[in-house]
């Protein structure tokens, strides 16, 4: 209680920096407990070793790191995860952008209805939504039947990379749309009108005015979706059919099936590094846009 009252009461006597420090303290503590401590634990676990039986050997060594980093499968996993996540992110962006633009331009009750429709999937767990996709994509599902009605042989839409990409794209779309919307603050229809009166075709207007103005939203949405995609494992597990190998699913297998916690921890740390890289890229992109 006291810490909360403090900044207000003593604000006059405190420098703004000190006030900011006090206000940041609670979240810093929460972060330390909720994020830093688990990460430190993970790091510690990655320095242990594991016996073939899965038994944990309590030690401090870089053996697990060495094994993981020299294993061609790990490198394949990293490449795969980055590639698949980037592709999904791009697809999500392309699919979400028009929706976000439309939402941005709509108003009143209609906008509220649309927003609720966009957010509603977030109220359902990704597991449930993934099962929904199984029903739609299975070989007796909606899409297959629809194609069959036109006499087309349905391709395999699920239990492979296609299924994972479809499922994750849909699951990530609400996040992308919300991120895009939050970044569309600078987009005002008058800029487009100005471009049109200056002789720009709608396409030119889009490239020269709309796209640059929405770039911050796109960067944010891509960062968010990339991070979510690379760390998602429920959907790849359910829709991948054991054919799609990603870092997150491998971490799950190592931690839950093979019981190799040090390897799981090491792979988790690698994911964390990828997050860091994504964040750095985002920051750089943002600086270039601004």
């Amino acid at each position, binding site marked *: 209680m006291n810490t909360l009252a403090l900044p207000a009461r003593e604000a006059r006597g405190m420098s703004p920096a000190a006030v900011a420090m006090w206000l940041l303290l609670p979240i810093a503590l929460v972060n330390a407990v909720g994020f830093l401590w*688990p990460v430190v*634990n993970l790091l510690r676990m990655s320095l242990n070793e594991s*016996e*073939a*039986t*899965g*038994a*944990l050997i309590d030690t401090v060594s870089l053996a697990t790191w060495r094994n993981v980093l020299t294993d061609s*499968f790990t490198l394949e996993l990293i490449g795969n995860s980055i590639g698949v996540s980037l592709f999904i992110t791009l697809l999500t962006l392309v699919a979400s952008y028009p929706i976000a633009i439309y939402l941005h331009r709509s108003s009143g009750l209609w906008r509220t209805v649309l927003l609720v429709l966009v957010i509603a999937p977030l109220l359902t767990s990704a597991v449930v939504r993934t099962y929904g996709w199984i029903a739609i994509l*299975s*070989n*007796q599902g909606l899409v297959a039947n629809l194609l069959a009605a036109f006499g087309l042989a349905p391709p*395999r839409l699920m*239990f*492979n990379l296609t299924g994972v990409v479809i499922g994750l794209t849909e699951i990530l779309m609400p996040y992308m749309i919300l991120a895009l919307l939050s970044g569309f603050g600078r987009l005002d229809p008058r800029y487009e009108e100005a471009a049109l009166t200056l002789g720009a075709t709608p396409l030119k207007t889009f490239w020269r005015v709309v796209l640059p103005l929405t770039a911050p939203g796109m960067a944010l949405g891509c960062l968010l979706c990339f991070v979510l995609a690379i760390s998602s494992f429920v959907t790849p*597990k*359910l829709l*991948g*059919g*054991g*054919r799609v*190998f990603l870092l997150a699913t491998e971490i799950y*297998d190592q*931690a*839950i*099936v*093979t*019981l190799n916690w040090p390897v799981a921890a090491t792979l988790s740390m690698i994911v964390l590094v990828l997050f860091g890289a994504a964040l750095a890229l985002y920051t750089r992109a943002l600086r270039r846009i601004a």
Partner: protein
Amino acid sequence: MTTSVKLAAAILALGLLTQGVRAQSSITVMGYSGLFQERYTKAVVEPFMRAHPDIQVTYFPLPSSAAMLGNLRAQKAAPQADVVIMDVSVSKAGTDEKLFDKIDESNAPNVRDLYPAARIPDVAGVGVTFDNLVMLYNAEAVKEPPASWMAMADKANEGKVVIPGIPDIQGVSLVIILNKANGGTDYLKDVSKGIAAMTEIAPNVQTWEPKPEVYVPIVTGQAVLGAGWNARAQVNNQTSGGKLKAAIPQEGTVFQINTINLVANGPGGEAAKTFVNYALSPEAQKAFTESMFYAPTNTKAQISPEALDRTAVKFMDKVIPVDWIALAKVRESIGEQWRRRVLPASR
């Protein structure tokens, strides 16, 4: 992290609940959740408590052996569980980590009556259930029980086969069975013949990760053939009204062993040993086999003929012996071959 928090909360709640009860001691049994919990509580835990009114048993369910090991690791300093039922390979890891006390005739006299396969060298616990791999089939689509595992390779079954793939041990089991059938000798040295057979099945496989369990797509007709564990297959056979059936093909099957383990320094003390001994007794073994069709590990258990028909006991000649502990050491290399040869064939 969260599971240990949940566990702590659960145990706190249990502590509060059990305070008013007359029981002098209370123990916690950690085991599989879902069907296993339901049936095991009815067949073993409740009769045990009736026979031992002074002992209160709490069943703490977890979805997998690995989750159980995770919990035990987290509470190594101050264990909350007393008895754990888990897969033998995981039990070996736990043994190596000194999480368990050795169970033998001295603290559980019924161990004396167990089948030799239930006493595993270098594992602290002993076998409490035997299960075996079965071929699952949808009885509406397949009229005759498939004679061979290789029925899964038939062109007619394209996209209709579901197999829990490696690293799941059902996939490992299938590789071992097919390895032997194709002239392989020592699965610890070389499983290439089993892998080769799997590459023939692979193109037909719909998914290597059937969810939530392999039995569901077979029951619904989403898939037609599959590989799964006998006990659950039998229960699913009953609950689906016969839509799913199980068979042991000519190539044979392998046993999966669940062990019962005594947690080192568990809070329950002697009561835990009493429970372990009861769980291994002929009556408990009979009750659980008749309830969920795991084969008994106690030689003296008198199983009803109907229940016996649903276990592998009559087909002991078809069971290929597997040393799960030794197998764990080559698991990684089998997984590697699986990824390099089987999966590419199933794309």
